[in-house]
């Protein structure tokens, strides 16, 4: 960890009670959802992490807290990459949005809502982005089925061909 990163990490640890994890050469800060917006603002203004690379999420069903929302931040001059994790429970999957701090987070948060069902409070336009607007369910959750079609071999060819939709015309 470089010096600048060390300073940022200790400041965030003090002010927002974040937990630090280091894996190979990557630093991760685990913080709770209430502090996320202030923490992002601090990291952007005081410690030069001005570039938001990515916002995504992971589903750890059945462990609690079920989801982890993951942010990746980058400091351009010092070339430091920082990962921030926010645990979210399945009972109330909600996180405040960081769209006002990083405008580029808008579509990433929409995608997390679409794929995982985690609401972002304060987002100006939270609707589905990659799935059709009337789709039900959140595909990347672990309890959502893959939805694959059984492969047609010679022994079950006619059975599946009967079930497959085909155009009437």
């Amino acid at each position, binding site marked *: 960890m470089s010096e600048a990163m060390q300073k940022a990490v200790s400041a965030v640890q003090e002010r927002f009670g974040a937990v630090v994890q280091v894996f190979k050469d990557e630093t991760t800060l685990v913080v709770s959802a209430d502090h996320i917006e202030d923490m992002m603002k601090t990291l952007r203004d005081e410690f030069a992490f001005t570039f938001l690379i990515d916002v995504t999420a992971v589903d750890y069903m059945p462990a609690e807290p079920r989801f982890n929302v*993951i942010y990746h931040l980058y400091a*351009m001059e010092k070339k430091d990459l920082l990962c921030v994790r926010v645990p979210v429970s399945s009972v109330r999957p909600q996180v405040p949005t960081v769209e006002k701090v990083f405008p580029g987070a808008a579509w990433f948060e929409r995608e997390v809502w679409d794929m995982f069902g985690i609401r972002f409070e304060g987002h100006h336009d939270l609707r589905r982005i990659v799935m059709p*607007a009337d789709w039900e369910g959140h595909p990347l959750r672990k309890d959502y089925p893959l939805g694959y079609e059984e492969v047609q071999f010679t022994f079950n060819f006619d059975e599946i061909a009967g079930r497959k939709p085909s155009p009437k015309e």
Partner: protein
Amino acid sequence: MADFREVTVEELRHLVSDRAMSGETMLLNMGPQHPSTHGVLRLLLELDGEIVVNCIPDIGFLHTGVEKTIESKTYAQSEVMTDRLDYLHPLGNNLVYCLAVEKLADLDVPARAQAVRVILAELTRLSSHLIWIGTSSLDLAAMSTFLYAMREREMIMDIMEMCSGSRMMTTYIRPGGLWRDTPVEFESAVRKFIDLMPKRIDEYETLLTRNPLFLDRTRGIGVISKEECIQWGISGPVIRGSGLAYDLRKARPYSGYEQYDFDVPTQTSGDIYGRYLVRVEEMRQSVRIIRQALDKLPFGPVRSSNRKYVPPPRSEIGTSMEALIHHFKLWTEGYPVPKGSVYTAVESPRGEMGVFMESDGGPKPFRCHYRSPSFANLQIMPLLTRGHFVADVVGIIGSIDIVLGDADR
């Protein structure tokens, strides 16, 4: 199939201005099937006469559910899917996936594999920029560049076919190195290609760079400043066209890029013309990198010898019991990768392409998320098109250079 529900204006009311409701401005649908949207992108344009007041992009028409499918296949099987994400840059998608797996599993990559990876990655960047220059100038009605670019691209595809058997979706870069060693004709074919490429790039420049029609359609259009780029998380030629020299090959080098000497071109105008100049110069720098890598190409193995992840060569299977057992285990259950989560990134022709991979210790990836540059770069469409004519929208989409397979995943 007829019972689908379209998104109505009611739901988008909060995005369009009030003038649309009274009929003063027109809502035009530049639909998913359109000659110049570079794929299936839907744009809802709010027009005041011919001037665009607002532009709302609607993506998802090529959503393939790759991230969900990867979670149900082993590491080796899911690499096949990654080729088809950013389909103009297939080896780059493979490369970033392999970098993530190698980081999690601490796999070493021999020097010859690193050098060939660099050569192939730069050839893929050239082929992607050739398609870009062909199609974006086709949108601005310069048809001959398209045919010339296709001619060069066929030469690159011949090289890919020589190495791996397939013209586009090669899956040639595997964790631990490459699939197999390059054939004997590889070096001479690549050298022949890079010897004639600089003159061909000059040909494209003669056609476009000083062409008054091209200049009229591209100068001062679609301007974005450096600060806005950083706020919105834009990377790639778009941010380099606005003045910031952010290139992952220099900032966080991978696969031995620190050994090669090349420049990162930038322009300060931030418009379509600036991005065009950046990409043409990038093509020249790619040729420079390939020449250096080819001159220094070392001999040696092309794949790691860690048999827990890399299958043994066929000749060993007949004689060694361990080789047979390794082969069997790798093909039936796959290789378990140690627990952890990493983020690795690569400079694709569109920007920063990254993979966030989390493993739970099993043979299948627990979560593999692709940070795609087209998805992030498409967010600034409303900013870029405001105040321009409808005809400029086409040029702007071409200059951001999006690939919908990448954006929708």
